């Protein structure tokens, strides 16, 4: 190839430099307008496949019958259940600990466990029962360990505890049964296994949230989460009835398994806690929907993101009730305790 230019004199050099400067400037303008274009494109991008439940996350304000008194955040995370003891002391099991608060949320005590607890119950004398995956740890009111009861089955995964005057019931999500113990930890019987003679339909437990409570009417209540119902049993295991219906509407339970938690008001009505659409509601003693304590919009982190963006199995809520009928909501995502009282 022949040389394209004969001599690079000063004028040519200046020419060259100015041209390349202009080119660079042009490149800069170009890339910035490209960035601006991509930025605006980003903002209009959509997801045609979004799973949109935002409509269901709004609650009719007329249905909300409670208001918040106070709230506090548990110093320990990985909270799982809440139970209210004598003197309205608030017990929260959080990872390897049980944290005890006074009703205002001031930390009062802490009990260390041998492992993470999934369930919790407090007797009227202050004895604390903590259900770990495969055993129950019993502490006196001062936090001294009194006993350890091994779970009766290899598959056990204890997720609910209820303590009465002479009985302790442990809900076992792994074995799908309620174990009946006496106060010394002796196994007395089993409740709720599929059994035609007792009319028991059997527990459907897709995720570890089976709970149990002793109602003032003398029957057990168990949340059969896979059937979206709360069921009643005698201590001997006789099925006595159930309530609850499957719907995303506010008066029912939705998702794979709800309600994941419940508690009993002093007058025998029910407080239920749900996951997926995190909400707390009141049902009367026969299971008719009454009102909402807090809807999904009250738990934005819980509703948006479960526990992190990927771990919804560990999201949701749990509830407890104190002697005055105030409701304590435990947010499993934010580790917050909210105290609610009826609206004046």
């Amino acid at each position, binding site marked *: 190839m022949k040389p394209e230019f004969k001599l690079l004199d000063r004028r040519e050099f200046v020419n060259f430099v100015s041209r390349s400067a202009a080119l660079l400037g042009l490149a800069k303008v170009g890339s910035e307008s490209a960035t601006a274009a991509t930025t605006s494109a980003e903002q209009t991008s959509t*997801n*045609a*496949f*979004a*799973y*949109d*439940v935002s409509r*269901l996350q709004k609650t009719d304000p007329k249905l909300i019958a409670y208001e918040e008194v106070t709230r506090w955040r548990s110093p320990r995370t990985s909270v799982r259940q809440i139970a209210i003891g004598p003197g309205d002391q608030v017990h929260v099991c959080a990872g390897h600990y049980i944290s005890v608060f006074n009703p205002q949320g001031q930390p009062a005590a802490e009990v260390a466990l041998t492992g993470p607890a999934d369930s919790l119950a407090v007797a009227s004398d202050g004895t604390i029962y903590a259900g770990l995956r495969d055993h129950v740890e019993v502490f006196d009111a001062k936090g001294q360990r009194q006993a350890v009861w091994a779970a009766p089955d290899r598959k056990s995964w204890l997720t609910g505890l209820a303590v009465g005057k002479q009985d302790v019931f442990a809900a076992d999500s792994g074995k799908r049964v309620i174990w009946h113990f006496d106060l010394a930890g002796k196994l007395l019987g089993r409740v709720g296994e599929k059994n035609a003679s007792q009319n028991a339909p059997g527990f*459907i437990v*897709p*995720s570890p949230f089976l709970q149990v409570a002793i109602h003032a009417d003398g029957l057990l209540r168990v949340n059969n989460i*896979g*059937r*979206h119902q709360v069921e009643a049993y005698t201590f001997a295991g006789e099925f006595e009835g159930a309530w609850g219906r*499957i719907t*995303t509407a506010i008066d029912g339970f*939705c*998702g*794979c*398994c709800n309600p994941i938690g419940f508690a009993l008001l002093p007058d025998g009505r029910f407080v239920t806690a749900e*996951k*997926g*659409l995190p909400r707390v509601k009141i049902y009367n003693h026969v299971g008719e929907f009454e009102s909402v304590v807090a809807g999904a919009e009250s738990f934005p982190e819980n509703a948006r993101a*479960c526990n992190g*963006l*990927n771990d*919804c*199995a560990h999201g949701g809520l749990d509830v407890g009730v104190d002697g005055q009928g105030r409701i304590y909501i435990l947010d499993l995502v934010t580790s917050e305790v909210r105290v609610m009282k009826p609206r004046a």
Partner: protein
Amino acid sequence: MPNPPKSGQVNPVSRRQFFRNGARVAAMTGLGALTGVLATRGTAAGWVWQIDPAKCLRCGNCATHCVLEQSAVKCVQAYAQCGYCQLCTGFFAPEPNELTTAAENQLCPTSAIQRTFVEDPYYQYSIDENLCIGCGKCVEGCLRFGNGSFFLQIRHDRCLHCNECAIARVCPGEAFRRVPAQSPYLLKSVAK
């Protein structure tokens, strides 16, 4: 290796020839050193792309950004983690009219989930991969209300193994990564 072309080029080495020879030797040495360095940490089988289910955000990009007409990303079912729920929120739309398999009750835009009765009250849910487009809608539905047994994976019998995965670069969760070709799936672990 074929012989040099027969030509009258066998002159005494000129300056240009010398330069060329030197440059070639240098290039060969460089190439040899490079491949040597790479070989010391080389792998035989190489890499494939995969989605880490723990990072997937179900944004829908897998359905729209794969270079294939129908994405190589599919929903898969970790049966051992499934609750076999009657009301499967991965199968049913958020507000179904009734719990039947009618298309308007289904969440999946392509009706790719097959629901079969097992025993009361359990149902099995499996994915028809010829219909699944990898949008992740069911994954979100299952994760949000259920056990999270549905998750997205690149199916390697369909994937073209692009050098740069077109979905990976738009993944908002940075969930795509190269994994060794010998263990090309990142399955949700199985309960025991």
